[in-house]
């Protein structure tokens, strides 16, 4: 870790002008941090947008250009997959909500520009889960977790089915019926989420795809980050920074954000998202909301500790920004994510199973 360079990535994404004084070592730290955080494509976009204000050295441009190429290929492959998914699911006669990266990309949002996509996340009403999964099976997707325990873990406790993988192309779909694990004790209303979702046009697809409304999208992005393992913390927070910045001008976005999050029992991750987006990227949040945010987070007795832990996940896992203590805090966060997802009477048997039985079951 190097105190001089360890915040280069977040700073450059928020204010590309700071690269004006960069030497070779600074650029190395910046590119390396962006690469290990899956943010190289987004960084390339920011530096490209900055135009004449920023001079990127020739050898650095090579890496930014490589990231833009990869991102363009990812986007192409996403659109191809969506066309196949649409033909598989159109017979359901139900809306299919795209979540996360896929949603940002097809909705033309800044957060989706040159972002890499892993799995494709879809959400349908719980009653449509089985027919939707069946339709995808008939179009070449196959279960990946064949073990009976894993099947039950997902189907009984989680907010999504076990991931399914296409048997030739290898693309993975996570089929959701809600946005947080029901075992977490937070019960949002998925019917409302689907009803509030907005239509989105995907090339060569019948009109079945939706994306969450701006407020719900921010809420889900925040849940994904702060109820998750925070392994890609900086990337996910950058998504939020882009979403909030872009939705800020939408009518009644700010008036509805906290009340709606509260109605879905998901206020806490939204408060954290606002706090950390301001802190790390300087995201603009109206003063009244920022104050309310501090007030409510201040009431939690674990507030300062959680802050300190989360702070560690907002650095790239790169030698220029990583340290033993930051790594240790990431491990604690990993444990915390399980704690948030399940009550102890489910979690302890689950972890015991994973630790002692799971591998043998797999070998057998």
């Amino acid at each position, binding site marked *: 870790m190097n105190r001089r360079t360890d915040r280069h990535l977040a700073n450059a994404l928020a204010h590309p002008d700071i690269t004006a004084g960069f030497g*070779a070592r600074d650029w*190395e730290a910046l590119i390396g941090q962006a690469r290990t955080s899956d943010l190289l494509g987004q960084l390339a976009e920011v530096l490209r947008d900055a135009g004449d204000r920023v001079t990127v050295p020739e*050898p650095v441009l090579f890496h930014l*250009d490589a990231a833009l190429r990869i991102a363009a290929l990812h986007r192409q*492959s996403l659109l191809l997959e969506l066309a196949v998914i649409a033909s598989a699911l159109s017979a359901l006669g139900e809306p299919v909500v795209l979540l996360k990266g896929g949603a940002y990309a097809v909705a033309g949002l800044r957060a989706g520009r040159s972002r890499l996509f892993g799995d494709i996340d879809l959400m349908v009403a719980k009653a449509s889960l089985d027919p939707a999964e069946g339709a995808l099976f008939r179009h070449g997707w196959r279960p990946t977790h064949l073990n009976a325990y894993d099947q039950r873990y997902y189907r009984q406790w989680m907010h999504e089915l076990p991931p399914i993988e296409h048997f030739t192309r290898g693309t993975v779909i996570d089929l959701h019926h809600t946005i947080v694990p029901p075992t977490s004790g937070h019960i949002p209303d998925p019917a409302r989420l689907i009803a509030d979702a907005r239509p989105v046009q995907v090339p060569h697809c019948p009109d079945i795809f939706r994306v969450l409304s701006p407020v719900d999208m921010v809420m889900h992005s925040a849940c994904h980050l702060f109820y998750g393992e925070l392994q890609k913390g900086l990337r996910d927070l950058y998504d939020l920074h882009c979403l909030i910045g872009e939705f800020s001008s939408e009518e009644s976005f700010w008036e509805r954000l906290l009340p709606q999050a509260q109605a879905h029992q998901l206020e806490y991750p939204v408060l954290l998202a606002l706090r950390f987006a301001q802190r790390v990227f300087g995201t603009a949040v109206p003063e009244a909301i920022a104050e309310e945010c501090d007030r409510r987070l201040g009431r939690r007795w674990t507030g300062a500790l959680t802050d300190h832990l989360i702070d560690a996940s907002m650095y790239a896992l790169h030698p220029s920004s990583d340290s033993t203590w930051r790594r240790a805090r990431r491990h604690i966060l990993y444990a915390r994510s399980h704690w948030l997802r399940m009550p102890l009477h489910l979690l302890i048997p689950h972890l015991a199973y994973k630790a002692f039985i799971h591998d043998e079951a797999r070998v057998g």
Partner: protein
Amino acid sequence: MSGAPLSSLSRSDLQDRLRAPDGLRLHIGRFVTGIRSRHAQVADGLATLYADYRLADDDTFCDYAVEVGRGDGLRTFVRPQSVFRFEGMQPFKPLPGDQAFAMLEWGLNWVFTNHAQHYLIIHAAVLERDGQGLILAAPPGSGKSTLCAGLALRGWRLLSDELAMVGLEDGLLLPLPRPVSLKNRSIDIVRGLPGDPVIGPMAHDTAKGTVAHLKPPRSSVEEALSRVQPRWVVLPKFETGSECAVQPMGRARMFMSLVSNAFNYPRLGVTGFQAMGRLVEACDGYTARYGSLDQIVPVLESICSRPA
């Protein structure tokens, strides 16, 4: 590519640089690579095989920073391992400590294949003669590297023994000369060839058996920035005791053979298809079965000296 060659460093300077935070910075083809390691074998291998590579200036941007570590905690002292890291990530499981130099070479292959997205990358040896490129594409075990070493020792310019990097825009072959990786019996075969072969540290009992590397000719290292027009594609197949049989190969078969040896063909989508099409259009293809270097080398030299 200014800079003094690595051979200008004393052994202790070399070791100091390998231990410094920035690492030893070398021009390898068009890329600047930073290498860190505390393994003496890595220093040995670099001193022997990379002697002619230029050191990068201090203010030069480093494209790829890699490390071959000894493992964490006690491993630092007791039975050290070889742990490859790229930008702090660890893409492979550790290997035994005495395979450190081979680990560096394999790791670098991985880094170049996965990050240089401006090229269609094919698993092949590439050589140049009279300004035109020969691509030897074959799966492992076909004798590709031995043949490549044999040609390089006879004065062909070595572009790479592992990676044919075809520019997506210009269709030219990007040189990335590195030591030629030799396995098992081919180590002794190459050691016995004329042309003063220099062989680096031996790694025994690896996943591929015994592995050692041949130092690339100095002229190949020095010309590493000049790109080459591809002209011939040969699929070599070494078989003990075989007669020499070299047959022309149609473009469709050449296309599919190159696809099956390509690393990033599916990922590149349409761009990859177009680049592969252009490559195949530009080349004459041959299959070559042979039982010894003495048989195949003259045949290749006669094919590759015909007027273009």
